[in-house]
């Protein structure tokens, strides 16, 4: 925590190549560098299949990088670190557990006592707007509600850096707007360092303090945008749309 006001995560010149069965190399991440600051909402934006998830997997220590450095608070990242928490596109809720049991799983695994972890879980269940659904099972919830459970679970585990990998990719356009509002609201109430990955320019502009635009495969940083639009943001405002168009024109089309 020594760098509370400065850079939390620093990614320097990372590379990743995969090999096909016939040993043909396939470069997926090509010299990517960026920094994540304390309490920043950083969006990584890129077209489909451009290697966004591979970058996240390397940052979170789930996958080895071929080259380059990743440092969290000045320390080299080589394996998953409890300071970082993930929300995935496929939520991975446990269908045999209630909302409460799903949300409290992180602190439970770390041996936090029942009272303390339930209080914390209840706080975040309320914060995502699911108060009253603590005893429901995932199959009783809509897609948007399940995704909220995933978000509450990630917050309850209290990561210092929250990583969200296309969390709304499977939702319909309106439920997606609803979830974007929720995340913007929660973030304004509770500052946290967030890395949010998406292929949706509108979503990136609505949520991000900074947007890192990636090129189509292999992923490399094409441009970094500082988003200085006032919050809460209006997606139909001329400034918003102008910036959206600018980024869109700079984005590769991955047919």
């Amino acid at each position, binding site marked *: 925590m020594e760098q509370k006001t400065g850079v939390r995560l620093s990614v320097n010149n990372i590379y990743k190549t995969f090999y096909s069965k016939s040993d043909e190399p396939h470069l997926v991440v090509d010299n990517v560098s960026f920094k994540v600051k304390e309490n920043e909402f950083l969006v990584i934006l890129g077209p489909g299949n451009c290697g966004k998830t591979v970058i996240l997997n390397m940052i979170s220590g789930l996958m080895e990088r071929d080259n380059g450095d990743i440092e969290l608070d000045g320390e080299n990242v080589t394996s998953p670190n409890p300071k970082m928490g993930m929300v995935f596109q496929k939520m991975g809720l446990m269908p045999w557990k209630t909302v409460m049991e799903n949300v409290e799983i992180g602190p439970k695994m770390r041996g936090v006592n029942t009272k303390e972890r339930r209080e914390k879980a209840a706080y975040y269940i309320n914060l995502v707007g699911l108060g009253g659904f603590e005893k429901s099972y995932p199959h009783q919830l809509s897609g948007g509600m399940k995704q909220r459970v995933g978000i509450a679970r990630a917050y309850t585990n209290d990561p210092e850096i929250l990583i969200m990998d296309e969390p709304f990719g499977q939702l319909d*356009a*309106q439920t997606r707007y609803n979830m974007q509002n929720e995340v913007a609201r929660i973030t304004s109430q509770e500052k946290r360092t967030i890395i949010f990955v998406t292929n949706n320019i509108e979503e990136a502009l609505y949520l991000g303090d900074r947007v890192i635009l990636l090129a189509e495969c292999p992923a490399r940083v094409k441009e970094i945008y500082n988003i200085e639009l006032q919050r809460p943001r209006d997606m139909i405002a001329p400034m918003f749309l102008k910036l959206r168009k600018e980024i869109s024109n700079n*984005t590769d089309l991955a047919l």
Partner: protein
Amino acid sequence: MSNKNKIEVKNLTKYFDKLHVLDDVSFNVRKGEFLCVVGPTGCGKTTFLNLLTRLIPPTSGDLFIDGTPADPKVHNLAFVFQEPSAMPWLTVEKNLEFGLKIKGMPKDVIKERVERIIKLLGLEEFRNKYPHLLSVSSEQRTVVGRAFAIFPDLLLMDEPYGQMDIKMRYYLEDEVIKLWKEFDSTVVFITHNIEEAVYLAERILILSNKPATIKEEVIVDLPRPRDFTDPKFTEIRRHITEQIKWW
């Protein structure tokens, strides 16, 4: 553009047991019109579409094509769903031929029409490939091409580009407009995405919450290609958003 009504929907109502999903919906679609239908999540859009495709029977009301009750055995109805549904055991070219063969079209007509679609969509390099080798977007392009190929009396599209990123979505929407203009098709396109509806439609029907009725009809009289930053465009988008916003 003719003013003749191709499709007439009269007093369509649907109950699932006691659940009232669709309430007395009536509207017409002109020949060659591009109509979009929007409504809040869960309002019954898909039930609405399934009634139009005759996949499920209405509780009451009826659907007429060219003045006769719609019948899949008589009329050409084509659908495109959100999940790409190319036949996995057929190449792109054979997928495009599929509907035409079922309709028993002569070989030279099939060949001519498939070539036209391959050319329009730029699918030359994929023509002999199987769907599993294609990206999701190219598979969906194949399915869209297949639907237009049969010259349907009515083409129904249910959120075909729901999961695409915005840049891709606009590219595919431009293709649909190209096909629609080229073949003068009659299209009903259902979506959650208001911006998409304003980009595509000549006319938009706004559905209410369940039981769904037509709340309002909006004419979109903007030149193409449309620009999502154009104030006239955003004005329509904002108006429709206000009509259905729940988020």
